[in-house]
């Protein structure tokens, strides 16, 4: 008889060995593609169903931030620095990448908590929940990128041909976001403080990362930027669009490696503990 035998016991995964866990994880992810898509659809449809502006909110927020920066710049309070491109394009493009990270991370960290009642009633792959939450960030990202396209037309400029490589160059950003997302969703499931910590962290990081201003050359911020993985994840694809070159190869490669390790490590940790979290939610 071809029937699946499932065994539940404490520390189930630990007894099976590390490598087989990874193959298990990927089989599970593959089997649950449709589930992930359905969960994404559920989230996406429900977010915008009872809203007048709907998905347009994806544009409104970055435009407001950019507007404030323009005002600060014109008043001479803030020095945006040398960016070598029209500021609005530079800023909106940066915001697109940044917001993918920030909305993705927030959505992931809340994914288990929001689905709490469902998790307590039905047994399904919680990884799909987190991935679906991250996928939610893709829609505003695409809209923002389209908006950038409009701006290019408005300025009578053309983006560099290398822009076509963007889908490849955002992969590290995606892995970084989902990796942290797995971790944050677990912790948030147990301690709700994590949600607050993340929103404070994101506000700080947005100002500390050269998203809306150019790379600082001197001072503390210059040092911080050098060791800020998010800087590379945002600025490398942006430079690709604006200039068609990659300026900081070494940094970017290191950050890529960090992203992959972070993703795999957090996915692994999530797999080992997802059921444990269910009972604490």
């Amino acid at each position: 008889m071809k029937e699946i035998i499932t065994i539940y016991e404490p520390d189930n995964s630990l007894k099976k060995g590390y490598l087989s866990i990874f193959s298990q994880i990927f089989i599970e992810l593959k089997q649950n593609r449709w589930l992930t898509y359905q969960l994404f659809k559920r989230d996406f449809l429900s977010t915008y169903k009872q809203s007048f502006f709907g998905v347009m909110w994806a544009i409104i927020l970055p435009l407001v931030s950019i507007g404030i920066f323009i005002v600060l710049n014109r008043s001479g309070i803030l020095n945006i620095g040398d960016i070598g491109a029209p500021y609005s394009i530079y800023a909106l493009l940066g915001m697109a990448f940044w917001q993918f990270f920030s909305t993705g991370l927030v959505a992931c960290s809340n994914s288990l908590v929001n689905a709490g009642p469902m998790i307590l009633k039905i047994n399904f792959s919680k990884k799909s929940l987190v991935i679906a939450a991250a996928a939610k960030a893709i829609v505003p990202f695409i809209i923002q990128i389209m908006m950038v396209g409009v701006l290019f037309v408005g300025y009578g400029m053309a983006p560099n041909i290398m822009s076509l490589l963007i889908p490849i160059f955002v992969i590290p950003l995606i892995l970084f976001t989902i990796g942290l997302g797995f971790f944050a969703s677990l912790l948030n499931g147990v301690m709700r403080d994590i949600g607050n910590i993340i929103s404070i962290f994101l506000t700080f990081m947005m100002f500390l990362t050269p998203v809306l201003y150019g790379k600082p050359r001197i001072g503390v911020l210059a040092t911080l930027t050098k060791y800020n993985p998010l800087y590379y994840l945002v600025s490398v694809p942006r430079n690709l669009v604006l200039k068609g070159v990659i300026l900081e190869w070494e940094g970017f490669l290191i950050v890529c490696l960090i992203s992959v390790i972070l993703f795999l490590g957090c996915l692994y940790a999530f797999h080992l503990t997802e059921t444990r979290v269910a009972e604490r939610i």
Partner: protein
Amino acid sequence: MHSILLKQELLSESEMDNETVINVEHVSKKYCKSLKKSMYYGAMDIGRNMLGLSSKSERLRNSEFWALNDISFEVKKGETLGIIGPNGSGKTTLLKLLNGIYWPDKGRITIKGGVGGLIELGAGFHPLLSGKENIYINAAILGMKKNEVDEKLDSILEFADIGDFINSPVRYYSSGMFVRLGFSIVVHSEPDIFLFDEVLAVGDIQFQTKCFRKLTDFKEMGKTIIIVTHDMQNIQKHTERVILLNRGSMCLLDTPKNATNKYLELMSGLHKVINTSDTGFTENTSEELLVNSKKQNKIGFGEDQCAERNNYNKNEFRYGSGSVQIVDFELLDDQRREISSVKSMDVVIFRTKVRFYRTVKKPIFGLIIKTKDGIELYGKNTLLDEANIKSHQEGSEVFVEYRINFNLQPGDYFLSAGIVEETSDGLLPLDRRHDLVHISVTPTDRSFGIVNMNTSMEVYNVVKE
């Protein structure tokens, strides 16, 4: 520890060759009473698991307790198992463990085949999305594939029977529609093992009938079913074996009839007795365990003539405070002659003699007639009758006479009699004697069913005008 594990592995592998589909071995599950501590423990466990260390779940930490303790049982393919128990006895936790929503902290659960849980119908429905959208999403969560859902969509809609509303947001559904849709999706996910948690109690009569018909279908298809319910009638009707849980421990695994009797006794919660019954669960020394009917003399049931009577059922099931007692009974026909069996449609006078060992202001007398499978056919008491029974003094004796029209088909029936006191805190059982009298009904006419409706028939020609 390791050798034990190995042994269990061998054991379960050999057992799984048979028809066993669920094997629960010494399973325990702990919960934490304090939210803050739970948070802290959760973070620690997760930390340990991430580092690849065991979470040492078999130990209790401060303010943790065992919600389920050392549960072991097996379920064979095609069997229907009931789980009953008072609130907080761990029934839902056990279902969640079987469904894999929680992990056991000790022991091991082995399951062959897919499990479908009806722990809450419509769990995961999004109120803003339409019924149809929710079908796809819910089906995906329940583990169905896209083509499966496409194929079964019509059948799901038909069973749910919600008509045009299928394209409206489920927020606008009546609770009945909501539940019907949820049930329909789960039913169509066609798992090998069904877990029902009280869900059969919702919805209107029509829906309930539909549910039970489906349940019967599943049984015929050879699916394994586990039902958690408080409804003793359903347990009697639908299950083959029943687990009685109390405070996280397994009191009993027995026939539905025995288990429900024990449950009723447990619910009366009056006796603190140590049980050494013949069911084999001698380890349970929980204070509130049950009275064994053979030891009842010790808790103050006095001289009892009932046992001398011909129709006395020695497997009766008795509980109550004992301050008022049924000390004797008689079965009489309408000429007041003593009888031991009754003909279908006859009138039977069931007379009990009741002795008051203390003054009772508001006594209630009642009777229940059950089939031999424990299904209640009829019940009546003086409270329902609004017959205000006067207060009775300590030391007084009364006869309580029930005049019963025995409109039942031939077969074996049980009469239960009881006395309850109405107090400001509710009803206090004084002496309840379930299945006290065994009575056989002999045939008068030839008909079938449970009741004798005494139908006359006539066949005559249609007269053309």
